[in-house]
């Protein structure tokens, strides 16, 4: 039984992020079985001393920590790395007698979920250095398709993410390994890669048009 879960959201887009959509859904599934949870947004924590203290206290108290973040240049966003450095440097919770579990969810903009693998390896090493029990890394590609929308708002479109996270939640509750099937659902593509690129390119142009800079989108300033 997971009594206390801590959700760490590592996106600057905070509540409106795809990271939050994925993390919130997973937490809600755990809460159905009586887990209590706490949620912190890393970008609001790392530069404030009293908030860092609170983060460390929450870590000491948790049975499960879920870190959900966007892939930034093949790795984790800088403030998330900063938080990891702070957590590692603070040893108090390493004395915690109870087993503490850790799982990471990385979502990226490119359609290939496998591009998250390096960032998830970094999470695994962090987990080991902090003495947590590594429950695995979940890779989600094409995060732009979720775009911060709560998964249950579009249950049809997001059905694979929902199924995948249901399996993840079950495995965490049963204290089992995350099954391969869960990873397969999470990395399933909504559309073929070539179509994703086509739609994406169209979308960048129309966004630039909205701001009146369509002609300047490729400008060189230096």
């Amino acid at each position, binding site marked *: 039984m997971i009594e206390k879960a801590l959700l760490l959201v590592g*996106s*600057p*887009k905070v509540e409106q*992020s795809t990271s939050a959509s994925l993390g919130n859904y997973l937490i809600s599934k755990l809460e159905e079985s009586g887990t209590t949870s706490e949620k912190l947004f890393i*970008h609001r924590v790392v530069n404030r001393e009293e908030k860092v203290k609170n983060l460390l206290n929450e870590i000491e108290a948790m049975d499960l920590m879920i870190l959900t973040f*966007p892939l*930034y*240049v*093949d*790795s*984790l*966003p*800088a*403030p998330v*790395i*900063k938080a*990891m*450095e702070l957590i*590692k440097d603070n040893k108090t919770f390493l004395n915690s007698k109870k087993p503490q579990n850790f799982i990471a969810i990385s979502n990226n903009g*490119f*359609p*290939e979920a496998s*591009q998250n693998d*390096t*960032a998830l*390896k*970094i*999470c695994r*090493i*962090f987990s080991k*250095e902090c003495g947590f029990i590594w429950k695995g890394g979940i890779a989600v590609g094409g995060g732009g398709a979720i775009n911060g929308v709560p998964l249950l708002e579009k249950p049809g479109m997001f059905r694979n993410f929902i199924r995948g996270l249901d399996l993840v939640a079950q495995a965490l509750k049963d204290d089992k390994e995350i099954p391969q099937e869960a990873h397969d659902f999470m990395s399933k593509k909504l559309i073929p*890669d070539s179509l*994703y*690129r086509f739609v*994406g*390119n169209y979308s*960048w142009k129309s*966004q*630039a048009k*909205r*701001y009146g*800079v369509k002609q*300047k*989108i*490729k*400008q*060189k*300033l*230096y």
Partner: protein
Amino acid sequence: MKALLLNGTLEQDSDIDKIYSSIVDKLKSKGFEIDSIILRDLNVAACQGCFDCWVKNPGECRTADDGREVAKKMVQSNLIIHFTPITFGGYSSELKKVIDRFLPTILPFFTKREGETHHLYRYQNRASIIAIGFLNNQDDEKELTFKELVHRNSLNMGAPIHDAITFSKDQNESEFFDKFNTILEKVEVKI
């Protein structure tokens, strides 16, 4: 020939600082114009993930701080040195804060490269990357992850030449500098 050195150390450390100075000297002796930046002394906000630098103000971050200046320098360099403690297999938070801010220097448009989706480049000139990561003790898992990260970055940043060298304090310094010199020669050929 311009070299931009991004020093992502979190604090002063005389052993590491000595290696850094030797790298600077080596580059100078090869005729590089040096721009050495101790990142922890800069004011660089975290990327806000807004994509304004692609669709609202193309090519420039909306945050007017030192991060903008570093992005500009990245575009104007032939070689960028990522100098960092290997942090869980990746970059330190100090180095990563400027790496995240490089987004304005590429285009939003997707293309396929080495079988994967990546972005088109905004600028013709792109710097080679030599990443130098240090550890207290040798650690294969961290070293491999670091190399993988640098390889992936080179695809996203379009580096003509890239390599990652790792060293630990228990390692022979001359071995490290031999590797550095070999890579530097490859970089020079491409400039």
